């Protein structure tokens, strides 16, 4: 049993190594699309759309009598937060940058970055003034965006020849295993969710499928869940599950604000989640003895589920949420077993999506009109 778990964790870690080795700053996800084209080559259909979403389909293995098989969509965003070059200093060639997505500037000083230029990636570092030359008062304030700069170690002329405003900057955070089956890297929001979706898709390819399964690796989630809005419209699924990350417990956060590492993924509840779909997720977890916990979302889930739910005439939507620490930093942490459990839950759920199970989800016509 322990060996099986170790194998599962290694499979997840290997996939995360691969997924975190590429850059996919929102709106510039091309390197990830190239990687996914390879990882999803076994799909029955594979395409991309105008927003850069990657859409992979597995046909159902059996069609229900006298009807079409339902279509279920698994959405996991593939983009990551980053920076964008706004200008280049005349004297020094220092790059001045602005955030793409919710970047906490307090994570940036003295960090490694990669600037993605026409001619290829350039390594750089976010500079800082040494403590010897700063006053204590300065050190008690986070830097302002106007003060932040990237040093490429190049002359101003070389910088201007190679970099132009609009080039994006990604953070560097190679994957590394910590203790207790945990794993750190940049962009585990949402490579952890994407890994779970990919693993689920692999399992589903090998098994019976009453439904058509559509995996969408969405773009531009971090700048406003944009890719998912377009994808939901195009795919028009009968049910959808967004797989993303949730806030894991850590010092400084109340337990009620967080979910726990190592207790399996959370099945979210709240206005963004279809109650019957959620019940089917929980039933799947119970049958397969997958550990799950509950995440309560009072309003906006901050995930792709938000636009998917209101696409077309409304799509029954649920959320699987993987506990993650230090969100939006280059040292995000997840527990590998939680990712594996999320994959198992998503795959199990897709296998239970049959016409009779989801029959009432879309609403019912009421009898009793005027006769």
């Amino acid at each position, binding site marked *: 049993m322990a060996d099986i778990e170790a194998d599962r964790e290694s499979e997840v870690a290997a996939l995360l190594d691969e997924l975190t080795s590429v850059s996919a700053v929102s709106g510039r996800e091309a390197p990830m699309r190239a990687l996914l084209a390879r990882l999803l080559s076994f799909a029955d259909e594979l395409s991309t759309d105008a927003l850069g979403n990657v859409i992979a389909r597995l046909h159902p293995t059996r069609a229900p009598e006298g009807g079409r098989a339902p279509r279920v969509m698994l959405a996991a965003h593939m983009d990551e937060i980053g920076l964008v070059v706004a200008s280049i200093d005349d004297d020094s060639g220092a790059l001045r940058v602005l955030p793409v997505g*919710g970047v*906490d500037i307090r*994570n940036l000083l003295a*960090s490694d970055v990669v600037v993605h230029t026409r001619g290829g990636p350039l390594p750089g570092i976010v500079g800082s003034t040494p403590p010897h030359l700063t006053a204590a008062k300065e050190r008690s304030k986070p830097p302002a965006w106007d003060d932040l700069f990237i040093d490429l170690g190049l002359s101003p002329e070389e910088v201007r020849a190679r970099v132009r405003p609009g080039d994006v900057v990604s953070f560097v955070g190679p994957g590394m295993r*910590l*203790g207790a089956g945990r794993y750190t890297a940049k962009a585990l929001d949402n490579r952890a969710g994407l890994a779970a979706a990919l693993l689920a898709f692999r399992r589903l390819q090998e098994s019976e499928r009453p439904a058509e399964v559509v995996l969408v690796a969405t773009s531009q989630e971090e700048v406003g869940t944009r890719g998912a809005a377009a994808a939901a419209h195009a795919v028009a699924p009968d049910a959808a599950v967004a797989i993303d990350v949730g806030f894991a417990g850590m010092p400084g956060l109340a337990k009620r604000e967080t979910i726990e590492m190592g207790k399996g993924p959370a099945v979210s509840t709240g206005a963004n989640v279809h109650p019957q779909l959620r019940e089917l997720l929980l039933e799947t977890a119970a049958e397969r003895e997958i550990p799950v916990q509950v995440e309560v979302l009072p309003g906006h889930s901050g995930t792709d589920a938000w636009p998917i739910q209101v696409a077309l005439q409304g799509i029954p939507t649920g959320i699987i949420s993987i506990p993650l620490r230090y969100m939006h930093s280059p040292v995000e942490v997840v527990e590998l077993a939680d990712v594996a459990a999320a994959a198992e839950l998503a795959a199990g759920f897709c296998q239970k999506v049959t016409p009779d199970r989801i029959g009432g989800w879309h609403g019912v016509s009421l009898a009793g009109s005027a006769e």
Partner: protein
Amino acid sequence: MFLLLARLSEAFGPSGDEAEVRQILTEELKGRWDAAYVDSMGNLIASFGRQKPGPRAMIAAHMDEVGLIVDFIDDDGFLRFKKVGGIDDRVLPAARVRVGRHRVPGVIGLKPKHLLKGEEAERVVDSDDLYIDIGARSKAEAEERVRPGDYAVFDTRFQELTGGVVTGKALDDRAGCAIAAALAVEELPLPVDFAFTVQEEIGLRGAKVAAERVKPDFAVVLEATTCADFPDPKARRRSTLLGQGPALTFQDATSIPHRGLLELLVRTAEEEGVRYQWKQTTAGGNDAGSIHLAAGGIPTVSISVPCRYLHTPRALLSLSDMAEALRLVRALLHRVAREGVPSL
């Protein structure tokens, strides 16, 4: 020098736990020295050219780096720490570290931006409120791998950014160590004791006892010094300029160099055509502060490699400045061999 610098930069060596750095330098130099001594604090003193005539030189470079020390493991297995040496609290979030004798990997994480309340986003988190996460589920699990008193250093891979510009941790003062080690294996014109010192970052402590033991006729400190020339090369607080050669110190917070030796150093640079610059601040200090006061007083000067972003996980320097520093210290030794130690 490049390969040695890479190894030294990635080595674990916070003030008080410099053994790994000492081991690398020992491997590099043993068999070539006339004698070597590791003293009670951990200074490595390697003597070369003992039989040679002429004044006895001491070349000092410190092995230690700024780091962290675990002072408490909390109930959930998070490591609380204190800073060892001068670190700006703002460079700690999102740092990767290695902890203790097992070099356990860990990260320093912040509460997610999404959950910050009110002015939290405007505040720098005090290092006392930060912690290292090594992936432990409990205090007991953490204690299997780490114990209070274990040190941590930044986990940073040494990297050449672009031609001749490198980044890494602990370039202050592994750059000095690499220059000294390169010089040590050359044919030297006079007897030299190379002192690879400990505990510079917490008060120039190793150099004090090393100088008392060596009692040289003069000393040269090889350092990495502040360089705040980027992004504004005209800044008043820039201190030094990258790529403009080693920096000479006219005065800092811990010493005023011996005037005669400093004049000889300047004359040497100018006559030998070695590019140099002045460190344009009196802030900071180095082992010269201890050495010049030791053994009744020792004529001492510093030669420093400009180093951007020092005391962070990612410092940056120009290899050309290191090469020029090596040329300069070598030329100075030849001058002193010919002319003797100058008077004040």
